[in-house]
């Protein structure tokens, strides 16, 4: 499929997220919806595509996040349509005849199902919801079958609504930088000294926004080996007239004592508040903690991942080419391949990501405002429904 090819090409989780959402939108619009259980059909279709997408690059968590968000949207839209339909039914029932036992029983039954469904989707994944769990997929077809009259219009309406919502999601992803940047002035004061590592578009937009509001501050940019994105960021910041100092990554500890705040971007934010970030970030976070410097992570909502990390340094990491550290053949003269004693003497390790535990993070700034790391699970629960966490698991199993 298209997805496999493009996974390797796209850089940055925002672009990935947007493209994933667009792809899923086209999937939804092309999907033929049956008369019964349209939501289920849509979910299955999205899941099938999502699995492939996630399998293509399991480390890019944004893909999985978007797939889950789309699934969540379908469920929500379906639910709201159902509620509306039942509301209508209820309304008609009330207007027709209140003493009609037959109809009354029917509506109360579906109302209960709706209520259960509403609980399971809209409420946080608490113990109570889990205990009261009624299979939503069972309840939803029931109600939809009950109102058979407006089936065709509703199916079209569902698809339409879902596509609308996905469009909104894409819009959100596109504008997340601006929404985060709007909060910049609240966090950056005059003469602040800010340290950042590598380059992130969110961070640069954030800093630009503060600069545009006539704040003057200095920025220390750690260059972020081995990709040296810090050079790019430094260039951009200077072009905007910000006082910028580029330092080597090894000088982070030396300089952090003179820094007021560390502002960095993230690759993904896990449900426990931990951050998957470009390599070197844990170093910065530890140094910031040692000197009691606030460590602020900027992340668009598409980076919020509903999974809890296990051994993230290894499982959610990616080892890049050693050529970024050592030239190929640079050490060929001192390696004795002739002896063939088995394992080579020289290994080169070049990981792409770092895991920053939640205790090192002072604040998350997302497009929904600032949050504590301990609150992230709840924020994430707003965006995803508990049923969709399985996508990833199945995908990994299939991988």
């Amino acid at each position, binding site marked *: 499929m298209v997805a496999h090819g493009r996974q390797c090409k796209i850089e940055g989780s925002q672009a990935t997220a947007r493209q994933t959402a667009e792809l899923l939108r086209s999937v939804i619009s092309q999907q033929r919806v049956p008369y019964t259980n349209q939501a289920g059909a849509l979910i299955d279709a999205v899941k099938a595509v999502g699995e492939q997408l996630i399998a293509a690059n399991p480390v890019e968590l944004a893909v999985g996040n978007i797939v889950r968000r789309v699934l969540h949207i379908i469920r929500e839209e379906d639910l709201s349509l159902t509620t509306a339909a039942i509301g209508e039914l209820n309304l008609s029932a009330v207007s027709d005849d209140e003493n009609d036992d037959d109809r009354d029983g029917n509506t109360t039954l579906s109302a209960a199902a709706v209520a259960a469904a509403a609980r399971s989707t809209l409420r946080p994944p608490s113990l109570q919801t889990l205990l009261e769990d009624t299979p939503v997929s069972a309840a939803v077809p029931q109600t939809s079958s009950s109102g058979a009259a407006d089936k065709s219009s509703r199916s079209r309406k569902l698809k339409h609504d879902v596509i609308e919502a996905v469009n909104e999601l894409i819009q959100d992803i596109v504008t997340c930088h601006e929404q985060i940047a709007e909060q910049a002035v609240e966090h950056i004061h005059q003469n602040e000294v800010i340290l950042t590592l590598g380059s992130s578009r969110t961070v640069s937009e954030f800093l630009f926004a503060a600069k545009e509001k006539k704040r003057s501050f200095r920025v220390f940019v750690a260059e972020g080996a081995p990709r040296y994105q810090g*050079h790019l960021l430094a260039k951009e910041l200077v072009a905007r*007239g910000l006082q*910028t100092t580029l330092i080597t990554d090894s000088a982070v*500890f030396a300089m952090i004592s003179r820094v007021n705040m560390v502002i960095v971007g993230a690759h993904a934010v896990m449900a426990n508040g931990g951050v998957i970030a470009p390599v070197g970030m844990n170093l910065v976070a530890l140094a910031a903690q040692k000197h009691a410097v606030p460590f602020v992570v900027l992340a668009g909502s598409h980076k919020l991942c509903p999974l809890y990390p296990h051994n993230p340094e290894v499982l959610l990491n990616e080892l890049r080419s050693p050529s970024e550290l050592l030239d190929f053949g640079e050490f060929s003269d001192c390696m004795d391949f002739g002896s063939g004693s088995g394992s080579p003497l020289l290994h080169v390790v070049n990981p792409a990501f770092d895991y920053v535990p939640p205790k090192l993070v002072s604040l998350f700034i997302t497009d929904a405002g600032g949050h504590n790391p301990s609150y992230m699970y709840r924020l994430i629960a707003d965006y995803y429904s508990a049923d969709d966490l399985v996508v990833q698991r199945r995908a990994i199993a299939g991988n």
Partner: protein
Amino acid sequence: MDSRRSSRAVIDPKVRQVGFFTSAPLPPDRTQSDPPDPIRSPPLADASSPGNSLSPVMIPPPRHPSDSLLRLPHSPSDAFPPPSPTTTTTSLGDFSDDVTAASSPPPAAARVRGRGSSVKQQGAASSFPGGGFEVPPSVKAPSSVPASGLTTVSVVKLPPGISENAGGSVSVEVQSDRALNSKPLKEKTSKAERRAIQEAQRAAKAAAKAEGIKTPAVTALANAKSAKSTKPSPQRNDSAVVVAASEKKGGDRSVEKDRKKDVPHPRMQYDDKSRVQKLKKRSVVKPTEARNRVELFRHLPQYEHGTQLPVLQSKFFQLDTLHPAVYKVGLQYLSGDICGGNARCIAMLQAFQEAIRDYSTPPAKTLSRDLTAKISSYVSFLIDCRPLSVSMGNAIRFLKSQIAKIPISLSESEAKATLHSDIERFINEKIILADRVIVKHAVTKIRDGDVLLTYGSSSAVEMILQHAHELGKQFRVVIVDSRPKHEGKLLLRRLVRKGLSCTYTHINAISYIMHEVTRVFLGASSVLSNGTVYSRVGTACVAMVAYGFHIPVLVCCEAYKFHERVQLDSICSNELGDPDSISKVPGREDINHLDGWDKSENLQLLNLIYDATPSDYVSLIITDYGMIPPTSVPVIVREYGRGQLWIYEECDPLASPGRCSDAVFFVDGLIFYPSQHLVLSFWFPDRPPSGLNNDLLERSDNFVTVAENGNFTNFEL
């Protein structure tokens, strides 16, 4: 009170530098109401010479006509012309009479104590320049008028000092009277007196300048004024007391000097414009200041890279002041051919050795003085090439002390031979042998199956790893490297050649790789007295992450690199490298965002060379004196300074076996002195000293067992 006074005297050396009071030696029959100096307290022969109402400080006693007793010689530093005697006396006489009348009748005891207090106040006034403004308007110099508010305040302030001693009621009266008296007195100051005061101030300025002390003229003025201010105090016979007090200060001076010697000199601060200018005049290299300097590091030198080298190379045959060996080493520092604390130190010492060999004392000069000056000029040249490392600083200090110790009776060739062997011994004992001992210690900390992490390239760590490999220990090495120097690559190459299994990564991946590491071995440029490890930039990061992962951090550092200086951060003292090396990434042509970065004034590139690792992160420091916690560093620093003397002068068992009978020799080369409770030196196992009284003993990590007359005693190390 005594302690207070002496502490004040210690606080400010400026008092004596200005040279107002110290010149007059204490006449043996002068009074001293409150004997502050136990050594030189003269008998109270003239306990209350009531006629002596002269200014104690400002007016040199002999010039006073009424004072027949004080016929004291003037020292040349006392360039302070006396005010016209007649006027002063009259005004003073008036004033003091007034005061005595007003504050009459104070009990005699109170008066005596009051005198004591006056000493204290004078001490205070003279030692704190700010206190110099405690000038009653009467004696204020007309040219420089302090704010009236200040004066009044100080006038009010002055008496409480007295009231402490002389009784509150009296002091209040004094205060009010003074306030009253001050006005009429002002009118009384004659033209002659005013001129005298002005002259005095000018002279004081000149004196301060002439002495070349950095005391601002204000201090001198203030002192002059404070001297005046104390003049109208109600106490008599102050002069003698003050002379005594100043004498006492002189007595303190030697102690103070000794204490001062221990405190390291403040480093050159490059944001001090005048000093930088002075430095530039002297320097051989004329470097161009780098542009786009980082604001935080103004105090450190940073020059355009690469501009000095060609200039110096072209000057090679013109510079006759420098020895070619020194010159060569300087160029090697500049180009970065020699780097690393030990290598730089050895190269420098060997260059000095050559320079000393070719040295001949010019006529009419002594070797010790001229050679020291010569060495100093070499050192300043080397500093121009690259700032000194702590190890080099210590080596230079050692060399200079050795030069100073050469007896004058020694002939030139003998002296040179002595110095040559001293330097040789320093290199052998303090660097080469020390490294061997460190290796021996550190190898015991490597177990089979260990994964050892090291950062950058440290010669000591490299030796440890190679030695452990030669011993057949099975371990893996993780080499962490960083930009821009990539020193780890060189280490990696050498280790892989030797057949060690290595993993190479960059410093950002440290958190990733730390999971598998069991020990961290780090080198150090210096270990400071507070346990801070001053080392290649990035060492602190590595130590911090290791600490976070609860992995022991072992720092390997020879004891000659220890320094009594303390440091908390990496900013106050550091070295700046070439910023251009940051903007370019070798082998990665795609990263060229910062080409021409120096055109934009908003962008600075910071290339720090060192950083300071807090002692919390260091589990152990392996030195040639054994393995110590970072808290023990000051002990080593202290004992090192002493031990050095001791080893070289009195009790070097290798030079004079048998002289130190209590030394215990260990098979691993350590010599332990039970009387000192310290391992102080080493012997070469291949060259055992003769005439040993004690057996060669084994020792464990923590304590040694010493056999004395058949009894075994344990000493903790």
